[in-house]
């Protein structure tokens, strides 16, 4: 399941950040030009878009263990390490609020409120009991956000 920030509707904001210089292949940190907002999860995943890649490897997902705005704005503890060198200002990145394989009946993340955010929630499952892809939109405000996924059994897949 995943919860993304959106620009509008169901369009994910995939340019929350732009790559700074020095993000070379093998690095375990990713530096961005923008200040990382306070409502960024303390750990999670960052998805980096190589805008010059027009194939199936255009986006890569890394997990991170921390972030900082001290000095440069940086996500640290990346796993795996960067698989390529990213181009400063051209390549972009975005951080979902939740981006995980759920292992319980609910998933949650606690962040520091910054400003109201439009979000997109997705839940998908293809397993012995598959469900139809579920998605909904909402607004993450100062009171937080919560929703229930409608898990309709997929009667087509086998």
């Amino acid at each position, binding site marked *: *399941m*995943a919860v*993304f920030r959106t620009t509008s509707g*169901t369009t*994910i904001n*995939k340019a929350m950040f732009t790559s700074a210089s020095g993000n070379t292949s093998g690095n375990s940190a990713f530096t961005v030009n923008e200040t990382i907002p306070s409502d960024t999860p303390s750990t999670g*995943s960052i*998805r980096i878009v190589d805008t010059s*890649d*027009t*194939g*199936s490897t*255009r*986006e*890569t*997902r890394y997990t991170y263990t921390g972030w900082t705005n001290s000095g440069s704005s940086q996500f640290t503890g990346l796993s795996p390490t960067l698989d390529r060198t990213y181009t400063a200002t051209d390549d972009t990145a975005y951080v*979902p609020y939740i*981006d*995980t*394989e759920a292992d319980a009946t609910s998933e949650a993340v606690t962040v520091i409120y910054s400003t109201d955010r439009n979000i997109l929630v*997705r839940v*998908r*499952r*293809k*397993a*012995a009991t*598959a469900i139809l*892809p579920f*998605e909904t939109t909402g607004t993450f405000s100062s009171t937080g956000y919560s929703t229930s996924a409608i898990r309709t059994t*997929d*009667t*087509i*897949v*086998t």
Partner: protein
Amino acid sequence: MPSPLTFDFYNSIIEVPSPDTSVDLQYLINQIRDTEDELNPAMSYSKIADAFGKQSLGGGTFVGLTVQLLNNWKLRFQARNGPDTIACIVTGGNLVAESGNPISPSAYTQITIAQSSSPTIATPDDNTNIKYLIESLRGSEASGIGNIFYWDPVNGNDSNTGTLPSKAVATFAQAQILTTDSNFDVIYCLSSHPSGITTVTETLSITKNTLKVRGPGHTFQLKPTATSNDTISVGAHSVEISGIYIETAVTGSANAISVTGNRNLIKDCWITNVRGQGINMISSAFSKITGCVIENCDGNGIKTNNSVIQLNISKNIISNNADGILLSGTGTSDNLVENNLIYKNSAYGVAIGSGVVNTNVRGANTIVNNTTGNTQDLGTDTYIETQAGGASASEIADAVWDEVISGHTTAGSMGKTLKDAKAKATLASLK
């Protein structure tokens, strides 16, 4: 089995890799849903397709499948090198696209889609009657009338449904998860290795009542490497294990099969090279071991422990073990050994321990050349039938001629009767 499809999320292309020349819509939607739930990168993209249909129309007929590709997604067959153009086909229902054309062109391929305004899926009607008929022919012990699952250690995948050979799972553990307790389900073991022999190192712990595990025979071999577990352990009732070649790890003391539970059937298995017991029975009633070869066990070929009753051991070949069959334990009674060939075991062919009650060793067993002895009876009310063909005519003649005179002079014996008759006849003639 078709190759996995590849998904290019940036260009919205689903590609059927070469050399595949066809794609079934059921397979397509399965692959789409399987890909859509991947974190990287699918979760950050909208869903690829919707699918409709498969409602039952009765009589084994269903509304056909329609797959609608969304958001400009298209299907493409991998480009060929030419110069020949390869004919490719999309089958299994209607493929449509939100954008209009669901097909993306590629070099040297020509695509055919068989579309219909009223597609249907026609499948055979309920085959329950056939299931019952077939199972009735297998004998009273077998009744695999539940669901069928396929276990293919070579080509299977544990994310599959297991409901067809082409959708087999890779491990027994997953296959058993798919089954239902007490539902008479069947797991078929598929031997699909190109060499002709499929070798499995997994150990099987059977916990579902009435589960039937059926293999193809010698070509499906369980050869565990772990020494900690018995190769097959049954902890359920009315389980069937048949048609499997079974060893244990080369070291340790594991048993090939251990059984705790009632009415279990072990049939047509080849059990060999075992460090412990070939078959170890504990607390079991009305179980049956038949048609098996049980050989080369460091322990006994078949061993009963406490509370094994009415075990039927028949039509097995049992050799080169410690005891061929050892019946032992408290509360062990009313067991039957018949029609077996039991030979060249290093201890007894059949050993019956003290406290074992009402054992019957009967009905055309051949028990020969066992080192310590063919049978040992320390039990209570044992019946051991004399083996047919055990003595030749000359041996019988010798036994008669060599019998001591006293055996023919006691009252009621044939010799004494004939002698008395002769004396009476002589006296009568003198009168």
